[in-house]
């Protein structure tokens, strides 16, 4: 009897103990870490400072579950988070302190916003009684980032942390993805609170997924079935909506030729017979010219950026436009749609595929092929197999692409080399092209490649950068050193801000104002960061140097000295129509 009672008492004590465990209070800072873990985050990028120190202190206890990558500049943290998100499809996370830490994030947040990249940025803020007092390292972070975030919130009470994080992750990744900023005052990080986490699946004022209007799908199918010259153009919406298979099925059943925007690249393998290349300013001849000859233009998950459309007054005027787009605000924003399909690309393409008739458009496809041949003879052949002494960016990209055979993630920066990489690298797998499209952020490449590699450690990740852009975030070589990230860097060094120089040559009478670069010894710099590095100046050395780069176990830097005053063609000059695309 006594035994039983003792057992009962022990049980009661035990259960009381458990109760206190449940009710145990933790700091707001620890709650931040627990929220990240609850969202399945295992990697964050950041840089510490006064106002975020409690969170860094909490991170110290969770090093086994949550890896923190110390970058060299907060811009690097947010670009790395973007690269991670773009490569994996998961939400990228970065952390910075208040004031300068937070303002250093702004470029990357704006980049993520315009390119629909899901990132959650956590910033420290001065203690709440100091808000608005011009305290040390106080800036109105929310006020600054609101124009470039999908959502943001300032937290002054630790009890708000779990709900804010749950919402932040849900908002960042649902609907059209985008960046979210959570600004947490230092007192809220210290404040004790009871932690309870509930994943967010619904916000009453937010409608990320529209219901498809089937009548519109039927209307679109009817147009397509009657069409003689249909043309499909796709953007990143296909990748974000995981609609790659649906796109392929639609194309194969319909027989319709297609082309992509810069961010749509890799949604459909380059070698697919219905893939006719890139749209826009430095895109391919056929898709640009024939945009103005098709009778039905089916735009999927893209937003008619001005770099794609050229002069909108002379863009696809002859065609009926079907616009499939998840973001209602993009429909009719630039180009008026005849059939508006406000929908997720995956669902819409699936439904549309069921309703269309299989067809072949031999004459129409031949028009693409003829223009392809003209472009090949006039530009591509020479780009890929040049006969002059100087090395061309395009031949470097060709060799890398041939050796990799599609199985790598290629990250590019911004400029001539970016266009060359987009034009000549052959992709097989989705999410294998990462670049800053909408904002065109020089300095994006190196940190984004670090993020991509950490997110996809088994993939070869190649960063192809101009000498200008490399120097905008060159300090992230330190992150590669400290974290041992095996990113393979190729600097295409023309000793110019090449793209700007090209414009100066074409539109400003060759007045090369502030575009020539006196560069440091990149090899010495790389070695200073403990990286193996090589410089190539001659064609004979190129092949083996690329082998060495690709086979390296660790991070590696290859500098290729390319022709200094080379240009990227074709080109649609600003303000010209897509059909006025120039071959020289």
């Amino acid at each position, binding site marked *: 009897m006594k035994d039983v009672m003792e057992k009962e008492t022990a049980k009661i004590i035990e259960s009381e103990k458990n109760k206190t465990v449940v009710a145990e209070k933790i700091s707001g800072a620890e709650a931040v870490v627990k929220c990240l873990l609850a969202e399945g985050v295992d990697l964050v990028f950041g840089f510490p400072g006064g106002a975020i120190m409690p969170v860094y202190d909490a991170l110290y206890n969770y090093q086994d579950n949550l890896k923190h990558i110390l970058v060299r500049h907060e811009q690097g943290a947010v670009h790395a988070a973007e690269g991670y998100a773009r490569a994996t499809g998961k939400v990228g996370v970065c952390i910075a302190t208040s004031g300068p830490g937070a303002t250093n994030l702004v470029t990357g947040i704006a980049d993520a916003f315009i390119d629909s990249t899901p990132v959650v940025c956590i910033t420290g803020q001065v203690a709440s009684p100091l808000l608005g007092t011009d305290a040390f390292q106080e800036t109105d972070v*929310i006020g600054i980032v609101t124009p470039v975030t*999908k*959502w943001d919130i300032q937290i002054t009470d630790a009890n708000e942390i779990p709900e804010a994080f749950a919402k932040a992750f849900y*908002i960042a990744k649902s609907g059209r993805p985008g960046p979210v900023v959570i600004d947490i005052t230092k007192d809220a990080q210290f404040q004790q609170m009871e932690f309870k986490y509930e994943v967010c699946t619904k*916000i009453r*004022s937010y409608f990320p997924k*529209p219901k498809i209007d089937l009548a519109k799908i039927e209307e679109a199918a009817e147009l397509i079935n009657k069409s003689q010259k249909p043309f499909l153009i796709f953007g990143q919406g296909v990748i974000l909506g995981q609609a790659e298979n649906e796109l392929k099925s639609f194309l194969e059943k319909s027989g319709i030729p297609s082309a992509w925007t810069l961010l749509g690249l890799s949604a459909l393998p380059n070698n697919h017979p219905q893939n006719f290349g890139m749209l826009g300013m430095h895109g391919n001849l056929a898709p640009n010219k024939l945009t103005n000859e098709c009778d039905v233009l089916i735009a999927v998950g893209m937003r008619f950026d001005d770099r794609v459309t050229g002069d909108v007054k002379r863009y696809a005027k002859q065609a009926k436009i079907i616009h499939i787009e998840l973001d209602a*605000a993009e429909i009719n924003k630039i180009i008026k749609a005849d059939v508006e399909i406000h929908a997720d690309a995956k669902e819409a393409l699936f439904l549309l595929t069921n309703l269309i008739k299989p067809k072949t458009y031999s004459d129409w496809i031949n028009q693409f092929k003829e223009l392809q041949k003209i472009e090949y003879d006039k530009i591509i052949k020479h780009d890929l197999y040049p006969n002059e002494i100087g090395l061309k960016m395009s031949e470097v990209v060709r060799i890398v692409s041939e050796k990799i055979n599609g199985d790598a993630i290629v990250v590019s920066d911004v400029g001539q080399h970016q266009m060359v990489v987009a034009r000549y690298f052959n992709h097989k797998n989705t999410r294998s092209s990462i670049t800053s499209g909408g904002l065109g952020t020089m300095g994006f490449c190196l940190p984004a490649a670090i993020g991509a590699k950490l997110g996809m450690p088994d993939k070869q990740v190649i960063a192809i950068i101009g000498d200008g852009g490399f120097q905008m975030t060159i300090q992230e070589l330190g992150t590669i050193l400290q974290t041992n990230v095996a990113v393979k860097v190729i600097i295409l060094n023309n000793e110019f801000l090449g793209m700007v120089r090209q414009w100066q040559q074409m539109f400003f009478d060759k007045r090369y104002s502030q575009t020539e670069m006196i560069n440091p010894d990149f090899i010495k710099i790389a070695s200073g960061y403990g990286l193996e590095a090589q410089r190539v100046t001659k064609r004979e050395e190129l092949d083996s140097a690329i082998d060495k780069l690709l086979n390296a176990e660790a991070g590696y830097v290859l500098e290729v000295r390319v022709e200094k005053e080379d240009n990227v063609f074709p080109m649609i000059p600003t303000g010209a129509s897509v059909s006025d695309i120039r071959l020289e």
Partner: protein
Amino acid sequence: MKEQFTISIFTENKVGLLHRVTIIFTRRHINIESITASESEVKGIYRYTIVVFETRESVEKLVKQIEKQVDVFRAFYHTTDEIIHQEIALYKIATSSVQNGLGLEKIIRDHHARILSLGQDYIVIEKTGHKEDTKELFDSLRPFNVLEFVRSGRVAMMKEIDNFSDTLHELEKSYQ
């Protein structure tokens, strides 16, 4: 062609949201003629009324950008003949100026205004109406030397019968 539009926005009550909404206008270099905000008939749901002078096309796009914000439920735009709207104006005049027998009471009556506060030093008159009406009263009060004048932003209701709860319900049905 530019004309006057009244935009009604239903939102959550969140710090910073008004900023998020107004920068949608400023980014496009669109001037806000007037703005008011208050709680709607649904508890916790706020209503902004914003007046702009713009083309229909530009307002259409603006409203889509506004609706895209996570904490905005819905936004509507209407031309002036599609709404019932009012503004409120207050006028302060010195009590001493009334003594010169200019018939203040008659003016107030004719304009359907009223005296809000009567003090030793000054009188505050209130009038609600359209902008032209409150302006007219201002002109009529000129002889009394108006010490202070203030007019609110527009508040407006749509002429349709729908209330916001129904709209919200409909909205939920059209999304997954």
